């Protein structure tokens, strides 16, 4: 069995450098690699290009990287809900590339799976299509979209083992499994690192081959962005 466990966040992030492209799992504040983001925000590295669905809120999630001005380019899909990000975007301190969410997900998967490019109808006829090749299949126009190329994937899972196998929980799964193995190095933090052999091979969402380093995170805050409850 190939072991992927590292003991510290520092070890998990070894090799990271300013200017690198990072994929960050999570959707909003749900399923985000809290420990890794905090460590990046506290680090001396900067000028990252970040690929992530959203940008967190001002004081949590990916927002911690904007608050510490670590990001020079953001590739995402929906970037509301973070005022500091807004400010940096409007003042052109940060470059922003907006991508349809399904295309974003599939571009991550393509990188993971060695598919260099694929066609999708999303964005045809919009400004997203302006720089893209258009091609008709089955009477419908599609855009050519290419796989992302990135240096580090930072993801969060619910359970994992030392072989790097991951299981996600609920909608905290989101982009996380698609980013595993989609960068040169994939780091996974998990809420619970379990002994090898205790995960049912049939229930593993992401096989360990897609994960290079795994560690048990701590102090998970798991903040809720929009607590919404039934009227009673």
């Amino acid at each position, binding site marked *: 069995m190939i072991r992927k466990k590292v003991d510290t966040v520092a070890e998990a992030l070894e090799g990271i450098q300013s200017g690198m492209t990072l994929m960050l799992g999570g959707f909003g504040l749900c399923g985000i690699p809290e420990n890794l983001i905090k460590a990046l925000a506290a680090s001396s590295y900067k000028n990252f290009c970040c690929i992530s669905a959203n940008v967190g809120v001002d004081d949590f999630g990916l927002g911690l990287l904007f608050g510490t001005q670590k990001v020079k380019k953001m590739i995402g*899909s929906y970037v509301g809900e973070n005022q500091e990000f807004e400010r940096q975007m409007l003042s052109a301190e940060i470059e922003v590339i907006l991508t349809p969410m*399904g295309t974003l997900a599939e571009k991550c998967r393509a990188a993971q799976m060695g598919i260099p490019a694929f066609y999708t109808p999303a964005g045809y006829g919009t400004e997203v299509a302006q720089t893209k090749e258009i091609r008709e299949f089955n009477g419908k126009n599609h855009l050519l979209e290419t796989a992302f190329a990135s240096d580090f994937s930072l993801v969060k899972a619910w359970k994992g083992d030392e072989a790097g196998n991951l299981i996600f929980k609920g909608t905290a799964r989101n982009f996380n499994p698609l980013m595993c193995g989609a960068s040169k190095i994939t780091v996974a933090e998990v809420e619970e690192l379990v002994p090898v052999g205790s995960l049912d091979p049939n229930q593993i969402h992401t096989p360990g081959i897609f994960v290079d380093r795994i560690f048990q995170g701590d102090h998970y805050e798991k903040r*809720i962005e929009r607590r*919404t409850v*039934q009227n009673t």
Partner: protein
Amino acid sequence: MALTKNQIAKRIAQELKSGDYVNLGIGIPTLVANYVPEGIEVEFQSENGILGMGPFPKAGEEDPDLINAGKQTITPLPGASYFDTALSFGMIRGKHIDLTVLGAMEVSDQGDIANWKIPGKLVKGMGGAMDLVASSENIIVAMMHTNPKGESKLRSACSLPLTGVRCVKRIVTNLAVLDITSDGFLVKEKAPATEISQIVKATEGSLIVPDYVPVMKLD
């Protein structure tokens, strides 16, 4: 008397057919889930990665690992499933979602939709909207007939950056139900106590008004 947002949602809920998988956008569309008619079995998908989405949780039972695409806490119904976002958009792109309901800033009389960007103002991003409108077979727009400035949102051409082209099938506004036809917006129903002249005045794009326009039934 123009419809309230809840009444728009209620009218749209009448479009639901048993067996429909439905994706509801943020805003008025979200309210549609509250008005599923008796005896109609549908399942709601949220594009971040759940099928079989149920009501909001009871206070104290919120799970941070269970949210919808609007980042609200949710609950699963029996038969629900969770999946990654690529599979989720595979459902959408692969035309497995039967009905998409979303809001819009503008819709053209050819069915183009603009709902993601106002140049010069803050851009929040398209999220899943471009994927949804590019692939859904049945798209209903839920919106007010005019914007806060009183300008028509039903136009001969969208003035705002597009989300998708020739994709909207039906619009339910506070004034009317309209279908997109090759000749423009066809008035199918009008809101209670609403004059056709109000609808005409509030519509900038090509409008077709049949001799008889029934009043929406909301109860």
